[in-house]
């Protein structure tokens, strides 16, 4: 089943990998904004909750010829999202008016098919009750409900911010948002301006122009998921790695053999 987007707004993100230094601002800002819980001490890394996760990716070289970039990976908000296809309880759905792929935790029954289906490993499961140190629940964002144990969750382009921006615009009698009125937390926090966000259909946001540049690419584009998160790098090895990692791992590109990612 193909999901046809009908709205006139199509939110998208462009991440410039040459600017990203892996400072982690985006990961922390995301967790603070979206009440992403901290697993208990000594929990395994694969029990982590990171709606935005920065991976270090290298060209497979050895010291000192190794090159490395940091790749922030949120949910890719695919136009043809595999997670939507597989969810048996319709807990994942695309907002046709914005193109944002949302997760409804109240519907989720925790089967984790969506996690298996997502080729970007951008979905996370609540293995634990969301617990904060005593008193720290007072620092939770009231616009975002904490999720319960046993459900999957993921990036939703800070939908709480979108709701706030829409309410503010409505209070002023407007329906449309100005580009600066709605920016996800990661894009706001990035100190290097590596993460840019906007409406692909709004020329004022400049996002569409960026996606058409020759250094722009999408992760695993050959899968046909049509992600709305775009990446940019002037390094051809980064683009090759991002677009079709399978080719690299099969050794078709001998110069890039052994390249890989680690979080």
């Amino acid at each position, binding site marked *: 089943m193909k999901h046809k987007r009908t709205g006139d707004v199509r939110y998208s993100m462009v991440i410039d990998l040459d*600017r990203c*230094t*892996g*400072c*982690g*601002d985006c*990961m*922390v800002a995301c*967790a*603070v*904004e979206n009440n992403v819980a*901290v*697993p*208990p*001490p*000594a929990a395994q*890394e694969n029990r*982590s*909750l*990171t709606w935005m996760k*920065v991976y270090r990716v290298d060209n497979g*070289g*050895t*010291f*000192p010829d*190794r*090159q*490395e970039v*940091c790749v922030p990976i949120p949910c890719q908000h695919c136009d043809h999202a595999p997670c939507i296809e597989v969810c048996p309880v319709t807990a994942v759905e695309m907002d046709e008016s914005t193109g944002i792929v949302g997760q409804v935790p*109240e*519907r*989720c*029954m*925790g089967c984790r098919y969506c996690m298996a289906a997502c080729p970007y490993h951008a979905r996370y499961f609540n293995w634990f*009750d*969301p*617990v*904060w*140190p005593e*008193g*720290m*629940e*007072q*620092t*939770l*964002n*009231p616009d*975002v409900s*904490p999720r*319960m144990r*046993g*459900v999957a969750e993921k990036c939703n382009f800070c939908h709480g911010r979108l709701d706030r921006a829409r309410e503010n615009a409505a209070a002023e009698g407007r329906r449309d948002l100005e580009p600066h009125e709605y920016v996800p937390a990661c894009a*706001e*926090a*990035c*100190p*290097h*301006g590596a993460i840019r966000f906007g409406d692909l259909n709004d020329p004022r946001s400049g996002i569409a122009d960026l996606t058409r540049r020759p250094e722009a690419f999408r992760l695993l584009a050959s899968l046909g998921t049509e992600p709305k998160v775009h990446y940019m790098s002037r390094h051809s090895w980064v683009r090759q790695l991002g677009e079709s990692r399978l080719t690299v791992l099969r050794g078709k590109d001998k110069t890039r053999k052994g390249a890989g990612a*680690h*979080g």
Partner: protein
Amino acid sequence: MDVTRRSFIKFSAGFAAGTIVSPLPWKLLDDASIWSQNWPWIARTPHGPVTLAHTTCTLCAAGCGLRVRLVGPHPVSAWSEPGHPTSGGSVCPLGLGAAQVRYHPLRIRGPVCRDLRGGGATWRLTGRDEVLGAAGRKVAELRSAGALGRLAILDLRPGRALSAMHREFLDRVGGGRYLTLPDGRDLSASALDELVDTGGRVPGYDLAGAGAVVSFGTPLLDGWCGAGPDPELARRRRAGDAPFLVQIESNASTTALHADRWLHLRPGTETVQALALAHAARAAGMVPAAAIRALDAGPLPGYADLVRTWSPEAAAGITGIPAPELRAVARDLARHRPVVFVAGGDPGGGPLGQEEERAVWALNLLFGAVGRPGGVALRHRPDAPNGAPAAESMRDIPDGSLDLLLVDASAPGTVVPPGLLRSKLASDGSLMVGLSAFAGGAVSGADMILPVPAPGEWLDDVTDQALASQGSYAWTPPVADPLPWARHPADLLDGVAEAAGLATGGTRGKARHEAHLRDRIAALAAAGQGQVFEPKKGKARSARGLSARELGRLFREGACWVDGGGSRGGPPSLRKAPPAGRGPGFETAAGGRPTAADNEQAALPLILMIHGQQGLSGPAVVPPVLTKLCRESHLLPDPGRARLNPATARSHGLGHELPADLSTSHGRLRVTVVHDENVMPGVVRLAAGPDTDGLGEPGPTAADVLSAGGAGSNAVWRLGRAALQEVKA
């Protein structure tokens, strides 16, 4: 109707088939999952009106502007202040987690002392009078014995109005020592003082106007300011106007990987590299011979000979940098003027070393960078009527020379090597009392802790840190009420004085502290220089014509004063001779900083390099959300992970992600070995933070790493030697 066996089975089968295709079982499944997932202990979000407040972050010395979102009385998140002059509109992960610090698990709920029943490893609540009484008795005892030289107060963030309160306390007591703990940036700034007469001005890198930046291991893009990048460099990168960046560093750090050129020199050979760079620049005609002669005839005797000796070819044997590569760098620098050379060390790895700092400052002087736009600005610190008291370095006082040490850790973020403070105390009958909101960080080794408000709960002030690009001054308007048991640090100092039987003069400490803050504002208003950034308007205005009252109002709204950068008072003059008691300046490191004697190298075959980010290094209070970076991912290396080159690891029989024992001449540590191609062969890298042990995380702590690196006993600990032995299952 007869009910037959057949009809019953048909009905049952039909009912079962019909139920499966009906919504009923799926709805039950769904509801069951919701019932089993929702429990009363799941956190509820706060409710109330949403407001914004503006303040300044004090979790490290960078002093970034924060825009705090409050729900009712609760600060729920902190964000960067757009346009803020000192942070360039960005804030590091530490600052983003600032709202959580108020509720940190290490926050103390009252005065605490060591619980000796548990061997002193844990804390127990005690009475404030008990702690004040113990400290007061010690003060009285030292006064009556005429031994006030054995009393000291350690100020971990000097230059604040509170620093003047420390001096007042010592004045009231009638003596005692005022101590600070200079970091690599402070020591770098003081090294310039040896070479030129700065006229009381302090240096700062003008990265806004630099054409090329040559960094000697400085983590400009990964932890130089807060846990984030240098704000000016980040701003220029955002604007697509980044200067040409040369990183001279052994390992492939983030800064090295993003630099236009990375010179991966052998560890500890920065001095030779700087001398060879001077040689190459002279050969390329970028540096006048007269400038080298002037340094040689003045503060650096023998400098001309050293520059002549260390040609790129001669240095290559020491540094490992091929001569053509160094000459290419010199040509690059000629194309990207003005050039500034940056040192100051790594916040976690500690100072670079005085000889290395001299060599780097000499390069700045040769290139005429000091006092020139796009180089090193020399400026006066914001006028402070009460002045910073004359300070001694904690490292310079003899071991065992103190009986009472008061540690003001009300502003966290300083790397305090474990064991350093305790080593200065006498072995018998001494007392260390911390003023802190947390039972961790700098006061981890204290005997007693008096609780003060956490960052964001009290009005403090923030001055620019050493080597910052511009002078700045701000207040930290509180965004939350202090918890009931916390007391203002100045009130606690009054309490100690009163317990010692000394009069306090009537006015409470907090009121006197606020009077000092107002005095500073009055001095700024009187000077009428610089600009004031108003966060509510998001723009700066001239400070000229602003009254002290108006300025005070703006500061209470989170304003920040800046001097606008640039040098004041013209270029400095070279000193005529080296300081008394110092030799030519390059005795030790000219052949490479020694990391161990030959006999030690056999037992400890690896070079240990410790590193870390500002605010996250050493024993520190880390917001829980930072586990996203160091436990839930490996974006930041945590203290328990020893990274070394895969080739080195294989040659030592060390497997990836396997436990190993790391030994140094200072101690032993259980680590996890991580193969990392970004580490130079022969080197093992350990991070001195972030410290998540306060969150209950098992494994080595930052204190363990610094101890193993000898940071408590050595002023320079960035290089050492170590051995790794895999732990067999």
